[in-house]
């Protein structure tokens, strides 16, 4: 059975983790925003901007990690814009989010055209290379899947851990979760809902941009238009699927990526060759919708998600 062979091969799982990494980063970003009560539909555009910014920085001569930082700062800039409009001004999170996606995408493409007016195919950079973690990478199957990735992937996993600890073990995380559950409770304890929510959106947007940057700096080594290709929207589905919990969302992203990796491989089998390739490309999106149908009824949505908070107004 070909599919079974695929499922027990280490290279398959290594690919799954690689495909999962940008989703993990961006999903954490969206999760942070939503836990504080703000839906961030800017995610798709912010990923595009992050993908370009990180790659462009490295292409201009900075180091790889500086490139990651540049991507993050650009993402945070768009996060600032989003949060100013949605938090203190309380504008529609749907409209602002889509507006930020349009703005981030178009300004990225504009910047690309300005920076590289002549080129027909985008230049390549020296991207992150896999780093085999000593000892751990020698574990059969698991070692190759988990511990022979690029440092960017390790960073993503570390960030999931940090996000989880932050949310559940620190006063700041408690305040963020409370801002997404009951902003009135946060205000009554003398904390600023506005500052907490804005901070969450800004940091979350930084994570999203890093997710985009992974595509140009680790998964590939160049920037293409349409390269994000709806991944941001899938991350929004993953947050719901993960019930707004970092661990579950990580699991969801890996499962999703495994499915994606599987469809790529099945396409190349004898059985897959008879099926139009578009069916395989559709599968991840259909899977996302199916996952939403399964969990939406019993999902524990943050009670104040998308509810603006205006003090003084009762």
């Amino acid at each position, binding site marked *: 059975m070909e599919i079974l062979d695929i499922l027990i091969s280490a290279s398959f799982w290594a690919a799954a983790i690689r495909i999962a990494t940008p989703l993990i980063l961006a999903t954490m970003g969206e999760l942070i925003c939503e836990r504080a009560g703000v839906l961030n539909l800017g995610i798709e555009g912010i990923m595009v901007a992050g993908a370009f910014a990180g790659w462009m920085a490295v292409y201009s001569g900075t180091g790889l990690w500086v490139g990651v930082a540049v991507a993050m700062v650009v993402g945070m800039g768009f996060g600032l*814009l989003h949060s100013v409009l949605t938090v203190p001004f309380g*504008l529609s999170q749907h409209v602002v989010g889509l507006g930020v996606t*349009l703005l981030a995408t178009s300004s990225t493409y*504009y910047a690309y055209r300005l920076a590289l007016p002549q080129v027909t195919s985008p230049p390549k950079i020296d991207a992150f290379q896999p780093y085999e973690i000593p000892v751990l990478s020698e574990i059969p199957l698991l070692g190759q899947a988990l511990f022979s990735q690029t440092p960017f992937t390790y960073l993503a996993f570390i960030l999931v851990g940090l996000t989880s600890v932050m949310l559940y073990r620190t006063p700041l995380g408690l305040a963020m979760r409370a801002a997404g559950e009951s902003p009135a409770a946060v205000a009554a304890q003398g904390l*600023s809902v506005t500052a907490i929510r804005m901070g969450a959106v800004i940091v979350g947007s930084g994570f999203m941009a890093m997710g985009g940057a992974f595509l140009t700096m680790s998964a590939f080594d160049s920037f293409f238009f349409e390269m994000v290709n*709806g991944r941001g929207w899938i991350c929004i589905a993953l947050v719901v699927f993960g019930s707004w919990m970092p661990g579950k969302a990580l699991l969801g992203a890996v499962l999703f990526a495994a499915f994606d990796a599987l469809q790529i491989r099945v396409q190349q089998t004898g059985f897959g060759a008879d099926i139009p390739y*578009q069916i395989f490309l559709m599968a991840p999106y259909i899977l996302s919708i199916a996952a939403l149908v399964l969990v939406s009824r019993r999902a524990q949505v943050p009670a104040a998600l998308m509810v603006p908070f205006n003090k003084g107004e009762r």
Partner: protein
Amino acid sequence: MRRWPMRLEPIANPSFARSITPPVLAIIATVVIASLLAMLAGANPFSVLGLILKGAFGSQFALLETLNRATPLIFTGLAIAVAFRAKFWNIGAEAQLYAGALVTVVLGTGALAWPGLALIPALAMGAVLAGAVVLLVPAILKTRFGVDEVVTTLLFNFIFLLFISMLLEGPLKDPMGMGWPKSARLIPEARLPRIVDGLRLHWGFALSILCALAVWVIQTRSTLGYEMRAVGLNREAAAFAGIPVNTVLVKTALLSGGLAALAGFSEVAGLKGSLTLDLSPGFGYTGIIVAMLALLNPLGVIVSALFVAGIFVGADSMSRAAGVPTYLADMMLATALLLMVLAILLTRFRVVRD
């Protein structure tokens, strides 16, 4: 922790100046930002703006081009305006547009050999049905399973485009197309005629104006329009009063999907004559900007679609002349959208410093 230094205070009876100043400032700010961006590209901002205006409205050719470009935007703008009015977040107008285009080529390339007067309305009806059905799925997922329609409609765009791609490389592929993924051409009876002979403007434009008027009448005069507005403004109160909220949402979705599909019908039957994967350069998404700039008013959609189409057409010709990337147009529109929603808020609230 310091308090956020501002607060919004509602204005009970906004003066005329109050309701006009912020939107005007938003437009000025958009133009200023666009000028700065043009300067970044090394161009003279005044000549860039002039070229955009000239390219959009400066000649009969330009004007017709703008009207042609505005036509699908009026349809998708109406689709979004109808849906957003009921707070049904249809971000999938792109998929519904392609659904309309698909039905048009499936039935209009010879399957129905009827005279034009019968065939064209049949194609339009078919397109409306297809668009409605495509949006029905997210609507039912929302009302039955509580699945957020934002994500489903967004993902549907990707699914549907792949579906079209599959058909264009399979059963719908034009045998004469020299290998390109492209459908066969419509039969002549299926083509929308021009409104005036010799002028490159087809009846799709007239249909879009008609639809805008129809939607306006539905929203202000019909019982369904009242229901849709009530559901949009306060779903809980609507349900309490006995308005069948889910039914209204489904009806809204059908209307919205149908309108978006007409964009696909009109592009294929009026302009392109066949279906390709680049039929729509994002008309479905741009419809959101059109609708928001029109404050969701169906008649306003006509004006804002002309404005948005003008920017795109003007930017195309400006780009050829001045070498500034056409993406300037998208940036201007995204900026205008964000500034305009803020401006509208500021017509009703004042910012108070704490």
